[in-house]
């Protein structure tokens, strides 16, 4: 009942006659969008357009917009002229769920993915309250605190411009809160029973790391062997000295391995340069590069500096819709060079920093500021990395304690070492 009432109110608000103040806020929003593209787009003539002429064309339209919805559409039409992805206007209520979602410092220690419209637990942080409570991969999170997740997921999935990464972040935000507090989380377990657990919110997994102006991020790195195959996973390309050191140790310690797996699922990126350094442990041939980043005044080649004794065995990189930015640069470049086989699902298609800002009228505005072309000539922004072998996680597999993506990579590596 509350949902319907909300929808009706939203519709009424959208089509009601604008006040002079609302009209002015829409005009200010339009100016902010237009100016941002003029000043920050990587092309001096964004999208090959005469951007000043675009202003002259759309400014009268925004002045005539009779509703916020019409004003939003004017701005969307203007952005559509770019024919480029990651330029979007979100209604204010969507912005609150994505760009405006404020994560608390505490977490119950769950990682989830939205699978078939449900937030499914994919892994549990070691030592977390979720682990102590006996939460199991494959369980569905239906409610976090006072938030039902299904309606939020439906609302966000209805916005085609939003990519998976944004959706997962909204779920993550719902599952966070002040550290030391408790969060009531309702699950659907493997037997279809509802279970509500009061989970203590602990610090995020990993060690805190600061890089320049970025907020403190918790970074973790794990390394293990699956039979005679090396496996690493890390959540961010940050904490440079530690993560590069651990990565190097894992790869060089695996020279006799049958293969190596780098799991970038859920990794939203970080310091772009680290992709080059890591690739140097895996590529022997000199003068190779992952791709080129094009900004307004410069281009930056992502070159690989091969290390002495680089690993030359079969290499699998695992990705999903939450693998973004540096993860895509790394995976896409190695795929283009024919050095790695990619497993999983298509990446976030957010190979570049794109910012989301709040507009004066309350809407959200997303824009990209650079273009990145992978070594194979493809723009990763908006396209992402398409795996060589598409493998999806399923709730059934997670409940059975399996990870079908890792299984597929292991099987491929073993075949490479088996005499045909």
């Amino acid at each position, binding site marked *: 009942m509350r949902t319907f009432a909300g929808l009706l109110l939203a519709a009424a608000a959208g089509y009601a006659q604008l006040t002079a103040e609302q009209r002015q806020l829409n005009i200010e929003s339009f100016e902010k969008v237009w100016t941002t593209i003029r000043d920050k787009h990587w092309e001096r003539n964004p999208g090959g357009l005469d951007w000043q002429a675009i202003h002259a064309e759309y400014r009268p339209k925004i002045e005539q917009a009779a509703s916020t919805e019409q004003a939003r559409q004017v701005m969307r039409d203007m952005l559509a002229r770019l024919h480029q992805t990651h330029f979007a206007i979100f209604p204010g209520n969507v912005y609150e769920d994505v760009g405006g979602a404020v994560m608390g410092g505490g977490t119950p220690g769950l990682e989830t993915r939205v699978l078939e419209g449900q937030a499914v637990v994919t892994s549990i942080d070691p030592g977390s309250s979720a682990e102590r409570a006996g939460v199991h991969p494959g369980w569905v999170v239906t409610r976090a605190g006072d938030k039902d997740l299904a309606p939020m997921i439906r609302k966000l999935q209805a916005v085609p411009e939003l990519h998976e990464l944004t959706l997962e972040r909204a779920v993550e935000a719902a599952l966070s809160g002040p550290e030391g507090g408790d969060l009531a989380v309702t699950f659907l377990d493997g037997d279809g029973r509802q279970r509500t657990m009061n989970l203590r919110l602990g610090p995020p997994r990993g060690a805190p790391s*600061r*890089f320049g102006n970025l907020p403190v991020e918790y970074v973790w790195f794990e390394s293990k062997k699956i039979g005679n195959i090396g496996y690493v996973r890390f959540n961010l390309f940050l904490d*440079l*000295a530690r993560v*590069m050191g651990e990565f190097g140790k894992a790869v060089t310690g695996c020279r006799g391995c049958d293969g190596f797996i780098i799991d970038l699922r859920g990794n939203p990126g970080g310091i772009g340069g680290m992709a080059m*350094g890591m690739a140097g442990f895996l590529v022997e041939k000199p003068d190779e590069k992952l791709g080129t980043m094009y900004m307004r*005044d410069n281009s930056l*080649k992502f070159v690989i500096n091969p*290390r*002495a004794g680089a690993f030359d065995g079969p290499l699998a990189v695992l990705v999903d819709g939450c693998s973004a930015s540096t993860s895509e640069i790394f995976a896409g470049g190695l795929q283009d060079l024919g050095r790695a086989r990619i497993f999983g699902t298509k990446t976030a298609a957010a190979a570049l920093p794109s910012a989301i800002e709040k507009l004066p009228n309350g809407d959200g505005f997303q824009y990209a500021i650079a273009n990145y072309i992978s070594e194979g000539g493809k723009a990763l922004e908006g396209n992402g990395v398409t795996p060589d072998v598409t493998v999806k996680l399923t709730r059934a597999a997670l409940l059975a304690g399996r990870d079908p993506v890792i299984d597929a990579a292991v099987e491929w590596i073993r075949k490479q070492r088996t005499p045909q």
Partner: protein
Amino acid sequence: MTRRFAIFLVFSACPGWTFADDALPKAETILDRFIEVTGGRAAYEKRQSEVMTGHVEMTAQNLKGTLTRYSAPPDKSYTVMELDGVGKIEEGSAGGVAWENNPMTGPRIKSGAEKAQSLREATFNGPLNWQKMYVKAETAGVETIDGEECYKVVLTPAEGKPETTYYQKKSGLVVRTTTVASSPMGEFPVEQDVSDYKNFDGVLLPTKMVQKVAGQEIVFTIDSVKVNEQITADRFNPPAEVKALMEKK
């Protein structure tokens, strides 16, 4: 790009430095005057090693760190920068080899124009040796920087892009350099403003360098320069990762 902090911009000497207003002096004259106003040939020639310490800041990114540079004749150089959140960035040269060991991009041996540029910057007492470093030096005009007229001198190396240095007419000191830095990642225009000259054992050196490259501003501040300190020979040896690359080649 950070190597440019090493003041490669300094050059040569000649006592006759009064110029007619309407005639541009020869580049050699401007370069020689620079040597004179910064201490004179004899003061430079007394120097056999240098250990420079300071700090670095990338203001927009809020990255800070420390730097130390060891130099000795003829082209021995070792610079280490410790940047918060990045770690230890090393670069060096000796015996005609130039290298870098960056925790982000890995170890590498420089080649081509980049190597040539690094070796020029590593040349000890560069101002005395400009004829060895450049095949041509020309005065290209007069430009005003911060309200002061400066001679614009273009120095062309045998390999790599020309470097433009601006010498203040009044003081004879270098105040700006511009060039294009070469690297495997691309070519990047670099502009560096130098100031706050201080006397270190008889030679004036700038202690503040503001470098603009690829849309970033990097500020280098020199805190101390020790001259003729004993530097052990192994200080200029490359780290193990770079040595491994040299052996591979």
